[in-house]
C-alpha cells in the first residue's frame, strides 16, 4: 500500500516537474509555479498517513499550498548531498532529534526563531511551552515516540514475554526476532536486558567494556534476528508471523491493533523514548512556503491532532490536554502514548548528544559486528 502510494506521488512529481519545466519556458514565471507546493519528507507508512491527515491536508485547505509527501528511512546523508551539490528538492524533513541537532550545527537546516513559533492557547510562548530539551534551533512541530517491542498473540500458546530480558531469552521464547538495522536503540536494549538500569545505560556504553558487554549480549540472539529498516516493516513481519516478536515504533503497532485488528501486544518494559521535529532544508527554493508549513505544524492543536491518528504525543506541555480519542474508532488515546504513566516503568531516554558524538563509530562497529 505504502509503496504504491510513494510511487504514485513520485510519478505525480515527475509530471508536475515536467509541467513546471514547460511553464518556465513558455511564460518564464517559475516563482509563481514553484511556491504552490512544498515537498515534505517523512517516514512513510501509517505515521506519514497520520501527518498527512492531521497536518498536511488542513495546511493545504488553509493556505492553498499543495504538499507533496515523500518518504525516507532517516539519516542526514540525502540532505547533505542536496545542500552540498546545491540541488535542494526536499523542503521540509521530519528528523530524529540527534540528526536534527547535527544538521542544524552543520548549517544543513534553516534556523527558526523560536519566538516566531505560535504560542499556546493561554498565551504561553512556545519557548516555555516545549518540554525541556525537545526544541532545536532549526525545528518546528514535534512528537514523542517510542521504540518498544511487540509480539503477535497468536505466536504464543502459553507464557508470553513481559520484559526486555524476555526479548533476549531465546531459550524461554524460541523463535526469530525483528530488530532495526542500526546501532541506535539495540545497544541500549541489550544493556538493559543484561541488567543495567536505564539511567546508567549511556554511562556504561561510554566504556570499552560496557560496549563489548552490549555487543556480547546482542551476540546471544544474533542468529535469531531478522533486520528491518523501514518503520512499516515490523507490523508486517508480525502479521505474517515471520518473527515472533520485533522492536517497532509504538505508533505503528497501535495502528495495526486498532485499524487492522491485529492481535498484537506491546511490551513497554525497556522502551526507548525519543522525539522528532520538522526542519527546513537550507537553501530550499521554496523557503517561504516551507516556513509557512513549519509554523502551521508547530501550532499546538495541529501537533496534538497527529495523536488522533497514531499514538504519538506532542512535545509541548499544552498539547497533552488536547489528546482525545482516535478519529475513526473512538479509542481513548492517552493510555497508548509512550509517556502515559503506566507505560513509563523502565524507560531509557535516547541521549542524542551521546549519539552525535559516538554515532559514527558505533555504526561502523555495528556494521562490522553484523557482517561477522
Amino acid at each position, binding site marked *: 500500500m505504502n509503496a504504491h502510494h510513494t510511487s504514485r506521488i513520485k510519478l505525480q512529481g515527475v509530471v508536475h516537474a515536467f509541467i513546471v519545466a514547460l511553464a518556465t519556458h513558455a511564460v518564464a514565471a517559475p516563482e509563481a509555479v514553484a511556491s504552490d507546493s512544498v515537498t515534505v519528507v517523512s517516514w512513510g507508512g501509517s505515521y506519514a498517513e497520520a501527518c498527512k491527515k492531521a497536518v498536511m491536508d488542513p495546511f493545504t485547505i488553509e493556505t492553498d499550498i499543495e504538499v507533496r509527501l515523500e518518504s525516507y528511512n532517516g539519516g542526514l*546523508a540525502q540532505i*547533505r548531498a542536496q545542500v552540498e551539490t546545491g540541488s535542494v528538492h526536499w523542503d521540509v524533513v521530519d528528523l530524529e532529534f540527534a540528526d536534527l541537532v547535527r544538521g542544524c550545527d552543520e548549517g544543513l537546516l534553516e534556523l527558526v526563531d523560536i519566538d516566531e513559533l505560535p504560542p499556546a492557547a493561554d498565551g504561553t510562548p512556545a519557548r516555555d511551552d516545549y518540554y525541556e530539551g525537545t526544541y532545536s534551533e532549526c525545528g518546528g512541530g514535534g512528537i514523542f515516540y517510542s521504540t518498544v517491542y511487540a509480539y503477535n498473540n497468536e505466536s504464543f500458546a502459553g507464557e508470553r514475554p513481559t520484559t526486555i530480558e524476555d526479548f533476549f531469552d531465546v531459550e524461554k521464547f524460541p523463535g526469530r526476532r525483528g530488530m532495526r538495522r542500526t546501532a541506535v536503540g539495540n545497544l541500549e536494549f541489550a544493556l538493559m536486558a543484561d541488567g543495567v538500569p536505564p539511567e546508567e545505560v549511556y554511562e556504561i556504553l561510554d566504556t570499552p567494556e560496557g560496549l563489548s558487554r552490549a555487543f556480547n549480549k546482542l551476540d546471544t540472539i544474533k542468529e535469531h534476528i531478522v533486520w528491518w529498516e523501514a518503520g512499516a516493516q515490523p507490523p508486517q513481519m508480525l502479521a505474517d508471523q515471520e518473527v515472533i516478536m520485533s522492536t517497532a515504533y509504538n505508533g505503528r503497532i497501535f495502528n495495526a491493533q486498532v485499524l487492522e485488528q491485529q492481535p498484537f501486544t506491546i511490551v513497554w518494559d525497556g522502551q526507548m523514548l525519543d522525539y522528532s521535529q520538522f526542519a527546513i532544508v537550507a537553501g530550499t527554493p521554496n523557503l517561504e512556503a516551507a516556513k509557512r508549513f513549519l509554523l502551521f505544524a508547530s501550532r499546538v492543536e495541529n501537533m496534538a491532532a497527529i495523536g488522533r491518528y497514531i499514538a504519538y504525543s506532542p512535545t509541548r506541555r499544552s498539547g497533552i490536554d488536547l489528546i482525545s480519542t482516535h478519529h475513526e474508532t473512538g479509542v481513548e488515546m492517552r493510555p497508548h502514548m509512550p509517556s502515559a504513566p503506566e507505560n513509563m516503568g523502565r524507560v531509557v531516554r535516547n541521549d542524542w548528544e551521546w549519539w552525535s558524538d559516538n554515532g559514527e563509530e558505533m555504526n561502523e*562497529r555495528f556494521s562490522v559486528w553484523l557482517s561477522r
Partner: protein
Amino acid sequence: MALSLAAARFRAAALTLPLVAFIGVTFLAPLGTMLVRSVHEPLVADSLPDTLALLDEWDGTSIPGEKVFRALGLEFQELHKQRALGGVATRVNRLETGMRSAVIRTARKLRDVNPDSWKEAVIAADPVWGEAKAWRALQQSGERYTARHFLHALDLGQDSVGKVVLQPPDRRIYLPLLGRTLAVSIVITMLCLILGYPVAYLIANSSTSKANLLLLLILVPFWTSLLVRTTSWIVLLQNQGVINDLLVAVGVTTDETRFPMIYNMTGTLVAMTQILLPFMVLPLYAVMRTISPSQMRAAAALGATFRQAFVRVYWPQSVPGVAAGSLLVFILSIGYYITPALVGGRTGQLISNLIAYHMQQSLNWGLAAALGAVLLGCVALLYCLFNRLVGIERMRFT
C-alpha cells in the same frame, strides 16, 4: 620526405586526441581527485588558521597559554555565527571521541562573550580543554595532508607514543573485509573458469549455426540489465522462491528447513558468477576459435589419448584466453558493488559496499577514497604478479 612522414605521424596521433581527452576527463581526473582526497583534508586547517598557527609552538603535553585560548575562542565564535562549526567538530571527533559535542558546546557557551581570561572561559565551557588530548586532537585534525585515512583503511592506529600499530582483533574492520573480498573474487574466478571453459570449447568446436545459437545464449544474458538479472536470482533463490518451492514439492526438504540461499554469501557467489560468466566465456572462445581442430586430430593420429592431447596441445594454446578471462572476471568482481548489496544480506557484503557506505551514509569521503586507493593498489599489485607469471603480451581478449 621526412617532413611528410612527420606530418602523417602527427595526423595519426591527432586522431587519438579525442580518446585521450575523454580518458583524461572521465577516468584520470576522477581517479586523481580520489587519490588526492584520501590524503588531503583542509577543512579544519582553513577554519582555524590562527589557533593552529599558535599551536605550532606548543610542546604537546602542557596546557596551552592564554593566547591560544583566545584565538580558539574567537574563531569558534566566528564559525558558530556562520554555522560552519559542525564539519570541524565532526573531524576533530574522529580523532578523539566526545570532541564533537565538546566543540559545539564550547562555541554555544562562548557566544557573545568577551572575557578577560579566555582560558578560564573556554575551560569553564567544557573542561576537556584543560586536557592535552583535546589539543592534540585539534592539532592533528588541522594537518592539511594526512595519512590518517590510510591508517584507518588498513586497520592501523597510533598508540599513546605515536607509534603505528595494528588494531586489536575485535576492532579490525577493513583488513578482514579486504581478505574476504579477495577470497570471494578468487572463488568466483575459479567458478567462472570451471563453468566457462567447457562451454567455450563446445562453441569453438561446433558447426557455425550451432555455435551462433550457443553464442546467442551467452550474449542475451550479457545484454540484459544487471539489475534484472540480480532480482531474478532473488525470485529464484529466496526462501519462498522457485527453487525452494520445487525442493519442498519433490520432498528433498520440508517447509521448516528451506535452504537459505540468498541474502548471504551463497547468494553473492551464485549471482556474481552468473553475471560475470560471459566475461570468461567470450575471451576463451575468441582464443579457442583460432586453435585448429586438426591439431587435436593429429595428436590422436600420433597415438596420444584425448587427455594427453588436451594437456600438451590444446590447453597451452588456450592459456592466453584463460588469462584474459580470469583477469577480467577477477578485476570486475573485486570492485563489484550492486549485486552484493542486493543479495549479499548480512554476510555477503564486500569492501565496495563499505566504500559506498562511507560515500553515502557516514559521508567520510576521505576514508572512502583511501579504501578505494587500497583496492586500486591491490588490483595493480595482482596485475603485476599476473604479468610476471603469464605475461600480459600473451593475453588475448579477442
